[in-house]
């Protein structure tokens, strides 16, 4: 029995599944749809969505887990920083156990480093206000949903004259990597389940260049099983009609223009930069760095450290997972050497990682 059987809307979901099956009946080649949002990854596994879709529809996960796409070099820098006496590192919980080249923040904390998990960058800021003699660094990772929160914390710190609050920024922005993957002939992506809350910030219009350049259908989709099934149906219909356009299934939260205020706040504090994505290398213009006006809050500039030499984890195929080229079960370490208790790669650590989601709902 999959989890869906307990869900209140199961009849609606089954109805949608039947309709998708009718629409795609008799097709020789499957349609491949990619989602690029950790919460979708979790929800799809949780509800066993794959098992109720016909074999003509294949769902794959892309680079949607912010912790997973963060390269080892970033963890290594955080590890180096936490060894500075007097420093306090603050982070979202997911980052704690991600293995860097030779250590993780969890390991460093066990050795005595002052590392605290927080729920919001505002909590990190409050900690800085309470400990004026300490340097408090927040690990700023995430996509467009998180970037305005971090920018907001920097603006607030500036207003309050807090000179001991810093952000180690490694934000990434979305539509561009989707465009690169859509152009990959090996993947043959027929449509995107576009991220829900990223889109709440950037708006449906942000996917227009992707649609125009790659002719790939895009549907901004919510997180409930009914949302996901409806999003898939909208994608199927576009494929059958031979069209590609942006549609918003999740209109109760997402508008075409997005959250303008949040966009302004991002632009006030950050400037676009090249970003390194685990598995995808450096992609121009897909990162956000703190701009000159707020450079005093940039941990990378304000707190120089020597970072160890980069090492990748032998055998971990996270990079291929994040590009959607393989499924977690294709990795020889999956579930044997690599488990949530003893993760080898980032995709097994974060609750939003494809490997962690696949492991948790394996049966």
């Amino acid at each position, binding site marked *: 029995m999959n989890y869906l059987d*307990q*869900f*209140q809307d199961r009849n609606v979901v089954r109805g949608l599944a039947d309709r998708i099956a009718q629409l795609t009946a008799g097709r020789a080649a499957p349609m491949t749809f990619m989602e690029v*949002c*950790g*919460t979708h990854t*979790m*929800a799809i596994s*949780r*509800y066993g969505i794959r098992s109720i879709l016909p074999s003509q529809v294949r769902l794959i996960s892309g680079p949607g887990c*912010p*912790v997973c796409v963060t390269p080892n070099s970033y963890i290594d820098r955080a590890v180096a920083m936490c060894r500075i006496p007097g420093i306090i590192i603050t982070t*979202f*919980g*997911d980052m704690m156990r991600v293995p860097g080249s030779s250590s993780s923040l969890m390991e460093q904390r066990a050795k005595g480093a002052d590392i605290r998990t927080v*729920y*919001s*960058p*505002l*909590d990190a800021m409050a900690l800085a206000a309470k400990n004026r003699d300490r340097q408090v660094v927040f690990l700023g990772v*995430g*996509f467009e*949903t*998180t970037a*305005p*929160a971090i920018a*907001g914390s920097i*603006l*607030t710190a500036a207003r309050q004259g807090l000179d001991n609050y810093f952000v180690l920024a490694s934000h990434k922005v979305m539509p561009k990597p989707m465009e690169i993957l859509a152009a990959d002939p090996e993947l043959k992506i027929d449509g995107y389940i576009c991220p*829900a*809350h990223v889109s*709440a*910030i950037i708006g449906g219009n942000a996917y227009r260049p992707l649609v125009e350049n790659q002719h790939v259908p895009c549907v901004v989709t*919510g*997180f*409930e*099983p009914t949302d996901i099934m409806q999003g898939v149906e909208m994608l199927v219909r576009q494929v059958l009609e031979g069209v590609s356009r942006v549609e918003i299934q999740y209109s*109760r*939260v*997402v508008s075409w223009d997005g*959250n*303008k*205020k*949040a966009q302004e*706040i991002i632009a006030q504090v950050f400037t676009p930069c090249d970003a390194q994505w685990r598995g995808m290398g450096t992609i121009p213009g897909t990162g956000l760095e703190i701009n000159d006006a707020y450079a005093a809050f940039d941990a990378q500039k304000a707190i120089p450290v020597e970072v160890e030499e980069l090492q990748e984890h032998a055998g971990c195929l996270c990079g291929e997972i994040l590009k959607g080229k393989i499924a977690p079960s294709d990795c020889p370490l999956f579930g044997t050497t690599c488990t949530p208790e003893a993760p080898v790669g980032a995709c097994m650590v*974060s*609750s*939003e990682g494809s490997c962690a989601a696949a492991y948790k709902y394996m049966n």
Partner: protein
Amino acid sequence: MCVGVPMRVVSIEDGNAVAEIDGVKREASLMLLADEVQVGDFIIVHAGFAISRLDEEDARETIAMMREAFAPEDMA
């Protein structure tokens, strides 16, 4: 970490809301919402910031799903 949670606003002071879901109260900055948010409204809270407003009926459905789908630690 990217899970955004719908919560109901119970009070507002200085651009900060106190929002509630399942008896758990959290502060949420309203800095990212240009439109007026009022007590009783539902907002989606991500990392301590309200990122979007949604109407009550939609919010109730979403909350029901989140409750079923995610463990409390995911929703924090």
